[in-house]
């Protein structure tokens, strides 16, 4: 397994947000984590990426225990998060944001070819190279956030709510780009409120409710699961 999360507990002060959550992501897989608002999706991503420390449990990446590593140390090992919402640097241009994605790299030639790759995936970004990120639309910032994460050549790409706040047309577009990134060989763990898109995309999926995993299975199976259809897909 590329990523193994075992029984992690995450606290915000006295409030426990995750109560012993476990999940796994294998090399080359696309795994979704779906759940309603407040289920603990973003907390899970914070714990895995190292932005927040866990109070118990273990996180292993690539066979190595990374539970006690800081976020920047985990990132250098290839565990890369594109944070939710407007996680771009608002005062930097598109190009500077992408450069930040490649902050830990020194291979200038390969970085330049990755710029090309990101601009091919997101033609909108190549039209706005010099634009300051804070002045772009929500969808463009989301694209920039994903593009920036790709600039580090992640072993595992963590996507936190890539569809958040986007119009339905844009959601379609973002998910087809994520599919393309997966086909190019990147392992992905995506956390989503938009269950239909997330389950269609995923090889496997987990269902998160108030800090616990309540269901797991193949994406296609969960799509036809009656209780999931009722709770998350709005179909009786």
């Amino acid at each position: 397994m590329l990523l193994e999360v075992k029984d992690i507990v995450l606290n915000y002060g006295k409030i426990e947000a995750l109560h012993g959550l476990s999940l796994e992501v294998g090399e080359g897989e696309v795994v979704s984590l779906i759940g309603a608002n407040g289920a603990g999706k973003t907390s899970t991503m914070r714990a895995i990426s190292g932005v927040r420390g866990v109070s118990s449990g273990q996180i292993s990446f690539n066979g190595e225990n990374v539970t006690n590593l800081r976020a920047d140390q985990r990132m250098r090992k290839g565990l890369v998060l594109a944070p939710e919402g407007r996680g771009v640097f608002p005062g930097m241009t598109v190009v500077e944001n992408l450069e930040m994605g490649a902050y830990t790299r020194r291979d200038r030639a390969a970085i330049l070819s990755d710029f090309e790759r990101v601009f091919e995936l997101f033609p909108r970004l190549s039209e706005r190279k010099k634009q300051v990120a804070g002045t772009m639309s929500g969808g463009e910032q989301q694209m920039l956030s994903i593009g920036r994460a790709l600039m580090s050549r992640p072993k595992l790409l963590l996507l936190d709510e890539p569809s958040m706040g986007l119009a339905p047309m844009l959601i379609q577009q973002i998910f087809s780009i994520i599919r393309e990134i997966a086909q190019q060989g990147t392992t992905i763990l995506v956390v989503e409120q938009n269950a239909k898109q997330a389950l269609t995309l995923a090889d496997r999926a987990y269902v998160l409710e108030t800090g616990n995993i309540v269901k797991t299975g193949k994406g296609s199976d969960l799509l036809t699961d009656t209780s999931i259809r009722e709770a998350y897909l709005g179909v009786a």
Partner: protein
Amino acid sequence: MDFTNLIEGLAGFTVDGLTKGSIYALVALGYTLVYGVLRLINFAHSEVFMVGAWTVLGVYTAVGAHSGVGVWLAIGITLLAGLVAALVSAGTALVVERVAYRPLRNKNAPPLIVLITAIGCSLVLVEIFGHALRVFFGAPFGRSAVNIPTVVPTREVFTIGNFNMSNIDLIVILAAVGMMVALDLFVNKSRLGRGVRAVAQDPDTASLMGVNKNNVIMLVFIIGGVAAGLAALLHTMKYDFAKFDMGFLIGIKAFTAAVLGGIGNLRGALVGGLLLGVCEVYSSALISSNWEDVTAFVILVVVLMFRPTGILGESLGKARA
């Protein structure tokens, strides 16, 4: 109000103000950089400057410097003093960060706790230099000013009308502006500088990009310390003394300059520093030198009434080319 005095000597007063302001600006850098990254007013920074001035005296004493040395030797000694002062000041800033601020940060201390710690560090350093120097070196060290030998004697470089440009003023202004330009390029164009801006804009996201926050914090304390050490050298070239509490007023003025220009903004530090220096000298020409400190703070209050974020008013993160 003596307007004829001001107008007749305008060029001279302006250069005087720019010289003063250059030193404010260099010290202001340290306040603004640390604030930009940590949202902390590092009140101990004035003492980082004071330590630099004593270091210059120490180097001069060690090499036996005096005003009679030749031109090349004078330049060499000055550069050496600047280098050592920059290192010692940066080291002092770094020690304060590691000993006082980082442990508090690691415990998520509220901002007020860190602020009062900063004031405490400042007082501790002041009193150490006010007492310990006498204990170790005897008189004249202690609570009075100690003369620093003049290594580079004042000379006229050029004359326009009734105005003489001195070598010292020219060196001070050029060195300060040069350092500011270099730092601006570093922050806006280099990879490490981008890391500094990233932490200033969003520390969590910066760490997701692989930026080590503590390294960036140490870096800004070092840069601020180097600038303060250099400012101390320039100050001794112009005013030739060191005193245990010399940092206080210059620190307050530099902090004022940083706020005036827009705290967290590098270019704001330069603009604020120069503006403050020039206004002070103009007001002492107009009224009397007793009024220059009053003027400085009246200007601050008035500017902040109309532009609460300062003249340039952007954060370090947003300030860009």
